């Protein structure tokens, strides 16, 4: 098994405008996702949702600035760390990951154990 990060990029406006109802649906969708990963032979090792980019602080060198590292329409809003057999398996799992206002990126986690 190998580890992959599923990075969730979405337009934050979707949630800002969607209100309570959208938040509720999203929570439920992520709950279903967690169950589906197991059913497909994968495993969720970790994951978090992030506060919006309006709360971000960026540090480059010595300079501390308000805001995200890069301003984009769709911002990183959360991530999962999963275990999967190979890229096809990881993609199969990532396809199920909720991201109604954007999409997800799959990145292999670097294996640093082999020295």
């Amino acid at each position, binding site marked *: 098994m*190998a580890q992959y990060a599923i990075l969730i990029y979405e337009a934050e406006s979707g949630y800002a405008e969607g209100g309570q109802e959208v938040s509720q649906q999203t929570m439920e969708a992520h709950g279903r996702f967690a169950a589906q990963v197991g059913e497909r032979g994968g495993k969720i090792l970790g994951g978090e949702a992030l506060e919006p980019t309006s709360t971000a602080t960026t540090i480059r060198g010595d300079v501390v600035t308000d805001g995200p590292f890069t301003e984009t329409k769709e911002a990183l809003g959360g991530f999962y760390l999963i275990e999967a*057999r*190979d*890229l*096809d398996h990881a*993609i199969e799992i990532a396809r199920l990951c909720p991201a109604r206002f954007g999409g997800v990126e*799959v990145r*292999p986690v*670097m*294996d640093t154990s*082999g020295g």
Partner: protein
Amino acid sequence: MSAAEVGAAVAQAHRQEWAFVLAATARVTRDLDAAEECVQDAYVAALDTWTRQGVPRNPGAWLTTAARHRALDLLRRDRTLRSKLPLLVVPRASPDGPVPGASAGGGRGPVTDGADVIGDDRLRLIFTCCHPALAREAQVALTLRLVCGLSTAEIAQAFVVWEPTMAARVTRAKKKIMAARIAYRVPGAAELPDRLDAVLTVVHLLYTTGHTAPGGPGLVRPDLVDRALSLAHMVRELMPDEREAAGLLALLLITDARRAARTGPDGSLLLLEQQDRSLWDRAAIERGSALVVESLRGGRPGRFALQAAIAAVHGEAPSYTATDWPQLLVLYDRLLRAWPSPVVSLNRAVVVSMVSGPVAALEEIGSLEQDGRLDGYRYLPATKADLLRRLGRDAEALNAYRAALDRTQNAAEREFLARRMAEVSGREETELPGRTG
């Protein structure tokens, strides 16, 4: 045995057996770079050994054994080869089960480890090279490099790209295969239609690049065309039940049957309507047409089967004017449903012009121009120009030909467009008004 004879035998084995040998060796090395090196070494060894001992009865098996021995030697000496980022070789009894439509070793009996399952290994190799997680241009480059054994320099030349750029592209793709763990296997039944489509698209792209070279003096790059044809044969042979594989092979066979007629004695481009049909390769058209029948049978036909059917209608027509245009229109409508591409709409417009006249076709061209997806596609203004020329609207035709010329790099095509421009501009000056198309 003479050096020339051996050289020819090795060259032939390179063309025919490369994928076979590399695919089997990659299983041992679990590293594409190392596998390539071992296979190169095996070909070098062949030059020497075959000169002394004669060409073996089965060069592919000889080369595979030599390359695998070399790989095992390397592994024994260099343990690190297996260490960091191994190629993910999936055990043969994979949880996905056998792939429908894949032939195991061409009916050579039960599958056992060793040379018998090479058929499968070549499929693994080509599906890995054409994995959708790789960019299309990387898929094409990797297929040429790993499945066909072309050098990076040759690939760069074929696509008119700087060699270091192509080398970087190949290296990056290989790294991604390892780091992201793209499995070295044939996809399971659920993924197969999409994944096969990617493979066939790459082979088709290779063919079209060779059919009308992106740059350079000649219209055709015969080397690329031949590579694409042998790949299409290979996929068809390895997946005999896949109708789209039959469709693609049929399409390439029938299109390529016209190769000798596509240029005049001076190398100038000749359109379908100008070609001497007696130069067409009848045997290839017949083989292709038989495959078309097979690829259309049962279920809804795919885009390659339909394109092949269209090519077959042209191939069987005694002349341009005696072509079964209404039948073509039916096929284009079905193709457009199977594959809603603006390029298909453009080709359909030409058929519309033959069924309902150029004015009707120009309307379709107009909506394609509105659509915008074909901006920069040279055949859109070229087709428009031809319709206008047929209507005698020479001044407008001239403009459209000029737009087409601006977008064309191939010398034979440029020359053709320039000739047409001279023709319509001459006519515009000299002809009397009142002329009808």
